């Protein structure tokens, strides 16, 4: 069986190597991927959507339907981890909306540094989200940075304390809100007499915009939705994984 698998791998490898000879040359400006659709995106994206960052324009508008499902994949992953690891009978957390503990065991330098770092990092994350359609960034990146701040806090303090402030229920709600924003904007377009995710229809309800600016603003909207889902689901996945689903003591 091992020999058979080895032969199969070799044959597949040879097939892939032989195929590589047929590829367009490296960096060839006239190859089909560089010629056909890319030209349209590069030359027309800003003109059609008023978004200077053409990556965001492709991601959130031209192929916005894909991105909606990528967000749904993150949502599904969080749900899957909770479904597999989660325990049903859970204690209610007594620690709720309390100040972060001041004197406990642990390194005071780390905790003080975290206190300074977290607000700045979160502010930066919001910049990444809000400025995603003008400069590199966007919902996925900003959402990951936001989730990272929560993970940093659980490392500096402990999981229970942070879950008291951002509980499993809240992660589920915010992940839902995020996907609702994305899909809801799509449905809103349908209700306004257009097709799903055809943002230009929103100029009817967004004051002071035309069809093109409406696309730009809607992209900000969906990026916020993506960020909320990614943030809460990544944190929920982390919390479940480090505590084996018990959501009590983490690392």
């Amino acid at each position, binding site marked *: 069986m091992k020999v058979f698998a080895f032969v199969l791998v070799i044959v597949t490898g040879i097939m892939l190597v032989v*195929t590589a000879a047929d590829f367009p040359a490296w960096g060839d400006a006239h190859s*089909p991927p560089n010629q056909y659709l890319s030209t349209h995106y590069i030359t027309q994206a800003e003109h059609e959507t008023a978004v200077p960052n053409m990556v965001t324009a492709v991601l959130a508008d031209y192929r916005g*339907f894909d991105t909606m*499902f*990528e967000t749904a994949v993150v949502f599904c992953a969080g749900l*899957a981890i909770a479904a597999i690891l989660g325990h049903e009978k859970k204690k209610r957390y007594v620690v709720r909306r309390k100040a972060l503990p001041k004197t406990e065991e642990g390194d005071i330098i780390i905790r003080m540094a975290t206190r300074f770092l977290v607000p700045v990092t979160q502010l930066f994350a919001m910049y990444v989200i809000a400025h995603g359609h003008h400069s590199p960034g966007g919902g996925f990146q900003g959402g990951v940075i936001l989730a990272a701040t929560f993970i940093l806090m659980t490392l500096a303090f402990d999981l229970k304390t942070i879950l008291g402030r951002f509980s499993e229920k809240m992660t*589920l709600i915010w992940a839902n809100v995020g996907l609702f924003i994305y899909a809801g904007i799509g449905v809103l377009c*349908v209700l306004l007499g257009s097709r799903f995710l055809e943002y230009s229809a929103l100029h009817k309800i967004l004051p002071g915009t035309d069809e093109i600016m409406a696309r730009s603003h809607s992209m900000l909207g969906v990026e916020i939705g993506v960020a909320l889902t990614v943030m809460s689901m990544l944190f929920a996945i982390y919390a479940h994984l480090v505590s084996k689903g018990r959501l009590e003591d983490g690392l």
Partner: protein
Amino acid sequence: MSENLPFLVIAAPLFGALVASLVGWARPRYCYAIAMVSLAAGLTAAIALLVKVSGTVSGYEYRLGGWPPPIGIQHWVDPLSALILVVITAVAFLAVMSARANLQLELPGKERFVYPLMLLMVTGLSGMTLTGDAFNLYVLLEITSLSSYALVAIGRGRAAASCLNYIIMGTIGASFYLLGVGYLYLKTGSLNMIDLRQIMIAGDMHGSQTVITGFILITVGFWIKMGLYPLHGWLPNAYSFAPHAASNLMAPLMTKVSVYVSLRMMLSVFTPDFLAVHALWAQTALLVATIAIIAGSLIAYSQTDVKKLLCYLVVAEVGYMAGGMWLMNRAGITGTIYHIAADAFMTCCLFLGASGLIASTGSRHIRSFRGATRRMPWTFAAFLVGGLSMIGVPPTCGFFSKWFLIQGAIEGGAWHFVAALIFSSLINALIFFRIIELAYFKDVEHEDDVSHPPQVQRNEAPWGIRIPLFITSVVIVLLGVFSPRVINWIERFVDSVGVT
């Protein structure tokens, strides 16, 4: 609004999943109602779509975001996708209908996860059927696979181990597909299926090594996903150790949609002309399918675990379709498409029946069928309709799909495939007559097994399982009785893609 039907089919289960996951936190009991309502909405939209397509010549497009096709993503609704969509949403509706009774027995307290995951899976499956964009298909495949991994892993006992196997194999299959699409993009610069076809024809790329490798990668990737025999390793364990509620949904749909996508790629992207040039492929694929049918049937015959037995029957049935599509003639393709629809209902019926049997006897062993005609006459009768359809007894739909497949194989001169189909029917007859024998002629009284009470008691499956089971068995017969209409419908598609 009727223009927006394709989006409704996808949005209904998606929003259902969101609402169910939110409501399920506080009130898990409402999840079932939410799931049923959203699936009913999806089914209604799918039927409306079918009616709408019947008025057009070849189908119509739906531009997501309003962008014209190669720039944006497009849904393409033609007779084939509309038909498969109705089958998927109908089977999903029936399978989820049975989920509550199964979940109460197996996984109490996990409803709030299971229903949203099921709905996300149906979203992905419907999307894969509708989409006209090769990359969008991958994204939807991802969400379908991810939710199905979770649904397998949530089970007890060996479910986690078989899920790991499933994840590894499934991921390899999906990445093969993605790599194949990447190769096509490298040559054409497009991801839209119709555009891909036109560029490949216009640029005369059918001889290009990259396109050929891309095609092989896509085909093998979906062979893994559909569980064609030598690549089927993940399927029996994953589907038999998964919770019944999940396997009732997955077993009928996952493999069928993979077959559909494979067929769509062959006919609508690569065109029959391209496949005709490489005659060796068809011979190889038919040989693999023949082996799959024979091996699947034989292994099924040797099983004593009811669910394992059904899983290997699925493996054999996949061989029917994987072979049928490579016959590349009118009867063969028609038979394959009809079999996708027929097999979805047949498998659903058998899995529902098996879960009903297990729910009322508590045993998965084939012996638990003993005296079933007295203990659970209705459940068993409905299960038997599925079994007779598997054998191919008229007027069930299994007869007609086999008829067309055999006709296509004879026309194509693939005698080994004909032999395999007939062999598999005989083995199926043996399997189901063995079950009938157990059910009719072996009584519970003559059994030494102390786990069963000696007196014959009425012990039907719970209503929650019996109702969808009855509906499914009625649909199997109706699909057979109205087969001329369905066949006409399918032939309209087959003619439009130029298969002769």
